[in-house]
């Protein structure tokens, strides 16, 4: 029945890259990359990552480490999250500067 079907499927490899060790490594690489972005935020973004995120060439190395460590869907997911966060921050900051205009 269903039990046998699942038993046969178990011969496929378990996706270990979603287990905790791999996850933690991915988070670390991700944080390193985003920290680099924050640090080099004054440089001109030339490289393009996923979903329209741009980053300067200085962060290329961290980007590569990041992409290697994490699954591509996860990279996209985190990039999207980062862009949304940035957008909200921009919105909040902009309101300050536009006051009185």
């Amino acid at each position, binding site marked *: 029945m*269903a*039990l046998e079907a*699942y*038993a046969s*499927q*178990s011969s*496929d490899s*378990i*996706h*270990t890259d*979603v*287990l*905790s060790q791999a*996850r933690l490594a991915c*988070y670390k690489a991700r944080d390193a990359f985003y920290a680099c972005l924050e640090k080099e935020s004054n440089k001109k973004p030339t490289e393009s990552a996923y979903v329209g995120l741009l980053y300067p060439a200085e962060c290329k190395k961290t980007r590569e480490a990041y992409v290697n460590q*994490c*699954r*591509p*869907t*996860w990279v*996209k*997911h*985190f990039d999207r999250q980062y862009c949304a966060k940035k957008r909200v921050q921009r919105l909040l900051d902009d309101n300050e500067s536009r006051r009185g205009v």
Partner: protein
Amino acid sequence: MSSAISRSLRLRSIYSSITAQWRLNNLSFHGLPENSRHFPSDFCIDDRYRKTPAFAAINFKFLCTTATGNATNQSNTNATATGTSASGWSEGDSGNSNDGKSSGGPHGKPVRSGPVSWMSFFLLFCTGAGLVYYYDREKKRHIEGIDSASNAVKQGPSVGKAAIGGPFNLIDHNGKAVTDNNFVGKWNMIYFGFTHCPDICPDELQKLAAAIDRIKEKSGMEVVPVFISVDPERDTVEQVREYVKEFHPKLIGLTGSPDEIKKAARAYRVYYMKTEEEGSDYLVDHSIVMYLMDPNMQFVKFFGKNVDADSLADGVIQEIKQHKMVKA
């Protein structure tokens, strides 16, 4: 002097009678002369006075007390209906002590003071105080009623529960087929997610594990955490086993055929949808919620993404205590 007084009295009574008559009845000014005829005509009647019998009597009273004092009693007995208005007219009249005296009393007895007396003040005060006291008591009773009613509602589980929960037929992470009956007898916390989740499910499961431990050390109650996968195609039994092992030893992972998962998700009103990515990988968009189920597998409370581990533990302990109180 008496002529001047009588003239002023007359004028005043003329004015009053005219206005009163106009207010009280719609008869024309000229339509009443007959009524006034049955009064004794040898008293000072003036055919300028077209008035009702009652007012005629009052006017007689005013006119005649200046002239003859002994007509007072008779005219006063006729003036039954207009005691108060007559007393109004006598205000400010300092000229004649008789008039001041003969205002009002329906039985013809002279009342010594005006309408506002110490007695009336006292009665008014008593009435006011009585009303205030009565309404105050009523309000207190009403508030008590509301309090007790709200307490009753909180404790009664039969006052409408959400229709969440239902039978399911899944496979746990050891490969054993389980249904919801296997979870009867202990409190359960059910979380729906999938193993390939980037950050949310790991965080939530970690929070759940921490809360379970905190509940155990705070109150000694056993709550069983359950993880149900909404991605049955990728989440095999082994996958789920490896996954839940890392969070908590008591965490039970459930998976099954896509149909059974769909039925279970529908029973628990959980939304889930595959977001198609290119390649073979995809993420599953799903509602992030934990359900607290009582030992009969009845739904008690849900907790969202915003509660942290401590609030979660406290919330669960509170619900269990309340449930025990109700059952007892």
